[in-house]
């Protein structure tokens, strides 16, 4: 045992001090939100493995070990730095170290689309901030709220279908240990439709704790299709919270592909707040080395006739750890709910670990819910069959892992992103 007995508040206090020293005042965030965020953060503390939701993701230990001193010294980026991160068939918007960078972003006038930084919000738009992600629900949301940077605000006006995907490139680059609290708000108004790709990168030379919060509000009869692409490398420790609210007759989907990150924790929380809506959450990860990939989902069925579908697959190599924790709430009023959840994992080494935990809480009686998890090794019968046809061990494994992942990679319907994901996935194998 170490000498530190319970220094939960010490780690949090230290972080607060470090960040307060290095941060300037955030004009767009109401003071009341900031004050309550700090209070919640101090009360709860950065979660450690004693916290039920962070059992396999000890953030406190990470901060204590890796981010004792936080210097917040960032690199300026140029077009050359981000050229390779762009997607051809999309409008590329760039967020550098948490701040929307208009100069690096592609300017395009698209009917019904508003793109601006958070500090340009009108007073009515400001009321949206923190309407979805609440500081009292999670210490990481509180941390983000208290020290948030000047992220993006996207709005699709009523009735507009954005004809091409928007690609938000979140790129971090620092030259000393930093904590980056990126935030955005995406509002899809009634009868509107958009596809958004969010890709996460770290091209700096120092370790980064990236604490991302995205609030997504989907109004009635609208459709938001998201692809999350995480490839931040081993200098990155990131927590990504998506707090999504889906209203009547609307459809939200997300496919998260995680290819690298020393620690990646995804909190994907979806509230189905109206009847007849759909949520589809998909995830694929490949963990190597000592990486920890932890997907937490929460689908809150509040109203009747909604459907949710979750499919998560993971491959854990070396000494890595993968976690899937899927909560489904079906509230009393959510009759005729259909909720499906499946998590499948492959362990590629004896030192790798997979944790899975489905959590269903059902308070309505007329619902269809199913969940299944499986974790196993690569199919040795199939492996032998391939080898018996002259295919070498390595190619045979690749074929089988590609086959395993294919159904998720195929959900990325944007050709260049699909290609890219496939290429990086194959490289990671």
């Amino acid at each position, binding site marked *: 045992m170490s000498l530190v007995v319970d220094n939960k508040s010490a780690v949090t206090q230290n972080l607060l001090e470090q960040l307060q020293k290095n941060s300037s005042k955030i004009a767009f965030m109401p003071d009341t939100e900031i004050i309550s965020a700090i209070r919640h953060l101090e009360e709860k503390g950065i979660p450690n493995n004693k916290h039920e939701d962070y059992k396999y993701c000890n953030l406190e230990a990470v901060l204590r070990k890796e981010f004792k001193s936080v210097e917040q010294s960032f690199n300026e980026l140029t077009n050359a730095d981000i050229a390779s991160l762009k997607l051809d068939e999309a409008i590329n918007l760039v967020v550098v170290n948490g701040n929307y960078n208009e100069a690096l972003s592609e300017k395009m006038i698209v009917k019904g689309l508003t793109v601006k930084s958070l500090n340009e919000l009108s007073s009515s738009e400001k009321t949206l901030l923190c309407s979805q992600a609440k500081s009292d629900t999670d210490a990481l949301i509180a941390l983000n709220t208290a020290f948030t940077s000047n992220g993006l605000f996207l709005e699709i006006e009523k009735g507009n279908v954005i004809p091409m995907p928007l690609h938000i490139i979140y790129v971090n680059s620092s030259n000393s240990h930093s904590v980056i609290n990126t935030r955005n708000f995406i509002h899809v108004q009634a009868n509107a439709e958009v596809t958004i790709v969010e890709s996460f990168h770290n091209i700096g030379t120092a370790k980064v704790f990236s604490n991302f919060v995205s609030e997504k509000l989907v109004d009635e009869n609208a459709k938001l299709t998201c692809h999350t692409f995480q490839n931040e490398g081993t200098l990155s420790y990131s927590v990504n919270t998506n707090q999504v609210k889906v209203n009547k007759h609307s459809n939200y989907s997300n496919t998260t592909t995680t290819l690298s990150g020393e620690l990646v924790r995804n909190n994907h929380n979806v509230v189905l707040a109206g009847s007849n809506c759909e949520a589809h959450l998909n995830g694929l990860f490949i963990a190597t080395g000592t990486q920890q990939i932890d997907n937490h989902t929460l689908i809150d069925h509040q109203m009747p006739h909604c459907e949710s579908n979750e499919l998560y697959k993971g491959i854990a190599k070396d000494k890595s750890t993968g976690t899937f924790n899927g909560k489904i709430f079906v509230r009393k009023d959510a009759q005729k709910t259909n909720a499906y959840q499946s998590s499948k994992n492959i362990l590629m080494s004896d030192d790798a670990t997979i944790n899975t935990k489905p959590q269903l809480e059902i308070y309505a009686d007329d619902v269809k819910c199913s969940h299944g998890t499986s974790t196993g090794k690569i199919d040795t019968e199939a492996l032998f069959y391939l080898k*018996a046809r002259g295919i070498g061990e390595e190619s045979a494994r690749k074929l*089988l892992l590609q*086959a395993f992942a294919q159904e998720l990679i195929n959900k990325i319907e944007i050709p260049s992103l699909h290609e890219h994901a496939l290429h990086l996935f194959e490289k990671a194998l």
Partner: protein
Amino acid sequence: MISIKNLHASIGDKEILRGINLEVKAGEVHAIMGPNGSGKSTLSSVLAGREDYDVTEGEVTFNGKNLLELSPEDRAREGLFLAFQYPVEIPGVSNVNFLRTAVNEIRKYHGQEEMPAKDFLALVKEKSKLVELDAKLASRSVNEGFSGGEKKRNEIFQMAMLNPKLAILDETDSGLDIDALRIVATGVNKLKSKDNATIVITHYQRLLDYIVPDFVHILYKGRIVKSGGKELALEMEAKGYDEIKKEFEIAD
């Protein structure tokens, strides 16, 4: 082609092959028969390199090479082919992609360039015709949802694609309807040449009416207890294995 001397193999502490001797020369067809559980599939698995079995004694030379030292993939690359008694379903891997990988890895092993996509597809077309395999099956996942007969046809289709020196067909006839049996057997015969050889494992004379063996061997309790010409198969079909069982029971 292949020379098997005093081959012993076991799984755990159970000895399944107990001294197999077999010599197959280029151009020959050998049939292996024998009661259920006598070790026919084990022999083919051991030859193909399945790692579950421990070879405890004996040697196998395949075209001058020590077969037992080679990895399963290198055995295949050297020209050994096993048509599985129970072909494996591999969801998500398309037949075509699987075969292209196999063809090219074998070519690479022999220092050849990859086969151009066009040639490969032409080959697929030609060889699937040979066993009248529905073209649609080629694009489906390997054996996934294939009927029993389709799986067996697919094995011979793969054999045709890979053009092995020694093919071991483990009960390829089981599960085939009468027409399919003829088609598959005709396919196998077309692939026969003076430079390759075939070992056919079967329970039924039916198949041997089409693929006529030069030698027939009876495997019982892990040993070849009797060998003869094609008439031995007819004899077994008529008499059953009772006599053999009686005679060799003692030697258990």
